[in-house]
């Protein structure tokens, strides 16, 4: 079992907090950015768990492109959730 250091705990709570914020907030742009933050921290966790292949993919697709595509799509529809 891989030992969970203090930084791992901080990252785990950051991921969970960002994910809950992304679900709960009414501002969709903030939700997209929170989801991007979550996947960025997840990519650091992948790197810590010695999976650099997955870490590169997660950082470029999850944190970069997906967030940009979400923001473009929100710009075409509406910013606030009813």
């Amino acid at each position, binding site marked *: *079992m891989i030992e969970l250091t203090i930084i791992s705990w901080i990252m785990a709570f950051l991921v969970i907090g960002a994910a809950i914020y992304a679900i709960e907030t009414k501002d969709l742009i903030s939700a997209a950015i929170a989801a991007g933050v979550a996947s960025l921290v997840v990519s650091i966790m992948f790197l810590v768990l010695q999976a*650099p*292949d997955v*870490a*590169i*993919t997660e950082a*470029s*697709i999850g944190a*970069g*492109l997906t967030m*940009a*595509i979400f923001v*473009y*799509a929100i*710009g*075409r529809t509406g910013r606030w959730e009813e």
Partner: protein
Amino acid sequence: MRKVVAIILASAFFAVLLVSFSNIQQADYGEKEYYYQNPINGSYANESVPSHYISNTKNETGAVNAVTAIVVEYRGFDTLGEVTVLFTAATGVSFLLYKTRGGKKRTEANLILKEGSKLVLPFILLTGAYIFIHGHLTPGGGFPGGAVIASGFLLMMLSYPKFFMKERAVSVTESMAGITFAFIGLLGLVFASSFLQNFLPLGDAGYILSAGIIPIIYIAIGFKVGSELSSIADKLKEVQK
């Protein structure tokens, strides 16, 4: 009420996950002994699949990066399916958003953002190309490399409202890369025994020109993924007329 139910369900799910992952060391994940046929020399071996990958990947495929060897060589047909899924998604996006350009007027970007992105773009493209050309040597491969290239073009789209991908060039690049992938697979059917099987010499492990067809296929996948993802971002962005 709904939130309470959701919290109870989520914590129950979390508890189940915690219990099942707490003794992950005791469970023998993927470590069962199987009798399976070796695809290279046809012999039957009595060893587990993960240990076979770890001990024999370098000799069988010539690739130092075992993940790449599994994705392109052992599970190459799955990768072809994955590329097809991405192609279908990109086609669907461009079909839905065909000729709906226009919309809100976008403000010009800051001078620092414009000049900075012009400065950074070549390095981003170089990093992406490095990631997919060295896919069989270092971590990475066609999918992350293509995504890095697409994020470089995305940066240009963010800083210049009038930056467009040339649609014809993008679609030609994508089609040529897809044709290369399928054609190499068919060549494997001709020169070796099965679809997508390696037919080139393996070379010395650790050099760029080694591992047979893996670098060629990953360069094709890199171009394909990069052009598809940047065309998705290009179709979605709003521009001033």
